[in-house]
């Protein structure tokens, strides 16, 4: 991730031909210009207008930054923004922690461990399947699975979807449930940690817990970083959960920004405003990613030097 900007190794003679290199990335450049750049710019232009979804684009009026200033007054937007941050800040750490925990459990050499790895990945495949929405509502309903389980151990159930405070948690849980890809990445990271470090720590008398904190975690930071970025990006773009399960409610307590963007556009037909919201979301994600990249030098530990010194491999 990091040293992509200093690729000294591509100085090797065979890869020095800039023209051929350009040929390889040409598809991306063309595709970007054609399929991303134009709509990207177009949507920014739209965000400066009062365009309505159903009208011809030409009929929209240029309104300058009005859509952006509007957000300052829009209580719904502010609520949505707050809720989005709340969601991201809760989901990302929880999901990372959970994925890491399972990865640690799965890293054990057990028979049939491959089966479990696969099984644990399945929820991530189910994705947007309709069944998920139905089941999920069943799980969290007032007399649903969770509450029934709680009752069995003598705890009064919670009105999961009915309370603004808890409705969000059902969405968070839905995402936690789809922890597969983060887990798989952790798993590979764990496998890359040499066994003998733990053996050395065993000899030094470190308990499993301390081994985890003092060895596993620091050595996992590159993977953690990668997962962190991916999860942040994903979480900020979370749409399915609230769309399917809570509809953003109650009291807009789970009205995440992507849902708001969608509804502004496709429910209220406010294409201009919707585009402006998208751009705000984009900028937020970009800022977080940038901060993460900037901060990594303080907490991410890269075991191997970037490939700078190909000569000293010893």
């Amino acid at each position, binding site marked *: 991730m990091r040293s992509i900007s200093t690729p000294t190794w591509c100085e090797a003679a065979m890869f020095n031909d800039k023209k051929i290199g350009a040929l390889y990335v040409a598809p991306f450049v063309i595709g970007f210009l054609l399929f991303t750049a134009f709509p990207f710019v177009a949507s920014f232009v739209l965000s400066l207008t009062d365009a309505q979804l159903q009208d011809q684009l030409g009929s929209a009026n240029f309104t300058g930054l009005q859509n952006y200033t509007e957000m300052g007054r829009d209580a719904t937007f502010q609520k949505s923004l707050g809720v989005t941050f709340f969601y991201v800040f809760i989901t990302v750490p929880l999901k990372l922690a959970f994925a890491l925990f399972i990865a640690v459990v799965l890293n054990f050499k057990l028979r049939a461990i491959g089966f479990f790895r696969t099984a644990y990945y399945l929820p991530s495949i189910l994705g947007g399947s309709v069944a998920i929405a139905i089941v999920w509502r069943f799980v969290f309903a007032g007399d649903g699975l969770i509450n029934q389980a709680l009752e069995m151990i003598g705890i009064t159930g919670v009105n999961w979807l009915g309370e603004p405070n808890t409705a969000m948690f059902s969405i968070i849980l839905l995402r936690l449930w789809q922890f597969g890809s983060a887990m798989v990445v952790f798993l590979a990271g764990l496998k890359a940690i040499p066994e*003998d470090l733990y053996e050395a720590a065993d*000899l030094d008398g*470190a308990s499993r817990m301390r081994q985890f904190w003092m060895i596993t975690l*620091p050595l996992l930071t590159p993977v953690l970083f990668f997962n962190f970025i991916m999860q942040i990006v994903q979480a900020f773009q979370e749409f399915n959960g609230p769309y399917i399960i809570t509809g953003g409610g109650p009291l807009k307590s789970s009205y995440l920004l992507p849902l708001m963007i969608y509804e502004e556009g496709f429910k209220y037909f406010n294409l201009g405003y919707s585009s402006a919201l998208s751009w705000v979301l984009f900028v937020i994600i970009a800022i977080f990613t940038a901060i993460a990249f900037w901060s990594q030098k303080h907490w991410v530990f890269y*075991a191997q030097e970037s490939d700078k010194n190909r000569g000293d491999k*010893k």
Partner: protein
Amino acid sequence: MTSSSVRLSAVTKSFNGTDVIKGVSLDVKKGELVVFVGPSGCGKSTLLRLIAGLETPTSGEIVIADKDVTYAHPSKRGVAMVFQSYALYPHMTVEDNIAFALKIQGRPKAEIRAKVHEVAEILQLDHLLQRRPKALSGGQRQRVAIGRAIVREPDVFLFDEPLSNLDASLRGQMRVEIARLHRKLGATSVYVTHDQVEAMTLADKIVVLRAGLVEQVGSPMTLYRHPANLFVAGFIGSPRMNILPATYAGATSDSVRIQTAQGSLIIPRKDVSKPTSDKIQLGLRPESLSLAAPGAEAHLTGYVTLIERLGGETFAYVALKEFECEPIIIKLDGETAVHNHQEVALTIDLKRAHIFDADGLALGHALDFNPDVV
């Protein structure tokens, strides 16, 4: 620094039903440095890990400092291990690496600092304490790994091929370093290596392993001079001992008569009992062979097929006439004038010749063999 004995009794270990260690009993005395050698996969590392507590034996008993530690946690055995890969914590500085065990033990900061610096001084790591392992050279990493072991003042040191990742000259240097340290600390040590030179020079006692069993235990020179069988004979010594087919032709109390393709030889040898089969093998180390002085009687004749000049010494590969075996290697002086295809006559230092029966067991002993100094 105290130091303790290690005793293994009938230790076995199997992985998934395959026996890897098939019953090893062994005594390592206080302060002794024992080296395990043996072909790849023979169970050297496994044995070491059993002592360390990183594996638990399938059966048998492990006693360290007179305490049964067969199932004790690694950290409770008073052992420290230096891994082949060093197993340094890559995210910690040298100082933190060395201090790790002490920190885990919850020792006071000041004490830790003092100890780490003491160790760093012994190993000449003082100026590197703030570096990360990746900023160290191979030899420096190796020293840190040793430092991490020393700082805990263990009763027993375990080394698993600690020098195998270093290049030749560094390896030589570190070998001398380890010898020095061992003399200085006097700690009981168990050392696994592939390297002839390390084994010969470091060991108080060499244990030759083969497929999970001990083949022979003894001081380096005992093993070199008096290998108990063909396997040990072939394994100890580099270049390998030359093996020639021969036939048993009778023995007296202090010699054996054998018949080779080039005639018969009388080899000084005691305690020889008649072998079950007459087919025997003659073992000759490269340095026990020399070019026969002109006119002098030669034991063997052949043609030089390859000469390797290393400067200080020269190895000549000689294809023996009449023999059906690989060319034998003889070690000559660096300046000896031989050339390819030359016909040479060879003299054998007969009191250093070895004889093995059809099962590969040594037939009798060399005359200077003394069973009490094994």
